[in-house]
């Protein structure tokens, strides 16, 4: 078991390192990142000074090693506009994004999984076709359009919920739904396929032949056996949610990482943009690692052989 965990941690570390390296080179795409950092209208002298002070005149390899060292010591640099460490800004905004992501995840798991199971059990009936339509709608609805529709209905016309801000728990409702809709559709599809796959197997037929009630079969047998694809998708979806948060937070003025990233792009405050994307990459690698470790918990066969699915 510990070998399995160690191996997965090592793989996740390599993936994270790769993602960070990729990001480093993306930022060097234009050759000189100093130009991204200076305010418009800076003199050539200012630019040269900043370039030297940030070490961008050094060879690429030296820059890369310094970048890794800074990351290793959690030194993300200073914000150029606000003049405070980027790490502090990041820490103050992370809780908001986590709340939003958790809200969206809760909604999509809580509704998506039952819908998917129901679709599989009621195959070919009217309820299935209804949910199919719901899933297609969720899948094709851009977050900013569902957000705008909800603002129109619940904030402008009915005045039930606040259109923006983060003053109360009610503010979290619409952003979570907007962000979670696509994920809900994905979960429903995955759960449907996973349950359909399992329904055809012998142990289910045996259980049904013995007269085990359907609810018990779903709960005791299908849930665990259908869990692996759901866990895989859940880990992937967290990275989608983090990216989707950029748009949802902008729309609802939710003070999370996404909003701070968009504001930073407008203000040309590049260290913050970089930090947010780094956070997203590390978080999604982390979630995939957790999913890998959960496979071992759910399915003892994986734990013992240590093999990949």
């Amino acid at each position: 078991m510990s070998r399995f965990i160690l191996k997965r941690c090592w793989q996740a570390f390599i993936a994270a390192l790769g993602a960070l390296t990729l990001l480093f080179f993306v930022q060097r795409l234009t050759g000189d990142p100093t130009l991204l950092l200076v305010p418009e209208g800076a003199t050539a002298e200012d630019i040269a000074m900043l370039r030297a002070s940030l070490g961008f005149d050094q060879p690429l390899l030296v820059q890369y090693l310094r970048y890794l060292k800074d990351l290793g010591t959690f030194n993300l640099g200073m914000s150029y506009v606000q003049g405070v460490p980027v790490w502090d800004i990041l820490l103050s905004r992370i809780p908001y994004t986590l709340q939003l992501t958790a809200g969206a995840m809760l909604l999509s798991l809580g509704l998506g999984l039952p819908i998917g199971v129901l679709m599989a059990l009621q195959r070919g009936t009217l309820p299935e076709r209804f949910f199919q339509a719901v899933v297609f709608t969720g899948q094709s609805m851009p977050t900013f359009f569902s957000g705008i529709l909800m603002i129109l209905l619940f904030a402008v016309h009915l005045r039930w919920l606040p259109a923006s801000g983060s003053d109360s728990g009610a503010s979290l409702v619409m952003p979570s739904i907007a962000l979670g809709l696509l994920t809900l559709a994905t979960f429903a599809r995955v759960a449907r396929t996973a349950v359909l796959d399992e329904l055809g197997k012998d142990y289910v037929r045996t259980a049904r032949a013995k007269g085990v009630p359907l609810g018990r079969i779903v709960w005791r047998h299908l849930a665990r056996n259908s869990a692996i694809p759901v866990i895989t998708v859940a880990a992937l979806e967290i990275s989608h949610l983090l990216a989707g948060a950029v748009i949802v937070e902008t729309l609802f003025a939710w003070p999370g990482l996404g909003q701070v990233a968009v504001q930073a792009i407008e203000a040309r405050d590049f260290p913050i943009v970089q930090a947010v994307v780094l956070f997203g990459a590390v978080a999604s690698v982390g979630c995939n690692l957790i999913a890998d470790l959960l496979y071992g918990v759910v399915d003892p066969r994986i734990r013992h052989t240590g093999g990949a699915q």
Partner: protein
Amino acid sequence: MNASVPGVLEQEIRPLPRFGARFRAGAAAVPGSLWVFIAILAGFALMALCAPLVAPRDPTAQNLLARMKAPGSVIRGVSYLLGSDELGRDVLSRIIYGARASMSVAVLAVCLSGVIGTAAGLLAAYCRGWVEAAVMRLVDMMLSIPALLFAVITVAVLGPGFINVVLVLGLTRWTRYARVVYGQALSLMPQPYVRYARFVGAPGLSIMGRHLLPNVFGQIVVVATLEFGSMVLFEAGLSFLGLGVQPPTPSWGAMMNVGRHYLDTAWWIAGFPGFCLFLLVLSVNIIGDYLRDRMDPRLR
């Protein structure tokens, strides 16, 4: 050919029906409700292609006397079927031209990423060894960065604009093709015809192009269809954040970004482009899903 078992072989090596006949047979199998979505997609494509002919007015022409007029208003003999925006521009004309921005970015990005991903997948499956390792590790790395965030930071570095958005989406979204093509091509490698081609010394390019590619092409089309929907959404998302096609060129995402500030007084500025976006993506997803089910032998 072995003449001693004529029946078996003759049955198996039936010549394919002519393309026209195959097309008619395929079209007849398409369920009626799907034609609705095919028509919607074709409508949007036509709108994008013939924008100057279809659009009632110049999408950038401002009329400050006709600001934020409701859909159906007629101001001095000019009718605004879908209303006007905060600068008095015709929303319908802007939506028609916006379809052009959306679809051209999506088509070009799908082509670019499709070519890159297919080439990478074929190379990885054919060459194996370090090429395979390098390609598949790169795919893993790119997948571990949330796609929209990756696009956002790259566009922020390169600067917004039509070409850059196409480049960024094309260069970041090839991973899905690479995975699908790699998996398929790998399963084809032990096939007799591929082994025979290698045995007689056919060059690698010819094996990849003439033997592997035609057999994975169907899968590529399915991925491309579904990716087209994602690309439309990505373009709209980037435009919504101000990183896409730049004004004055109209784009749906940018229209929604402006319109969201006027939701209580002029919902149509954001509402109609949003609905078009939804309709387009829904049609593409439904068509893509149908194609995928048709391609999947388990579901047939």
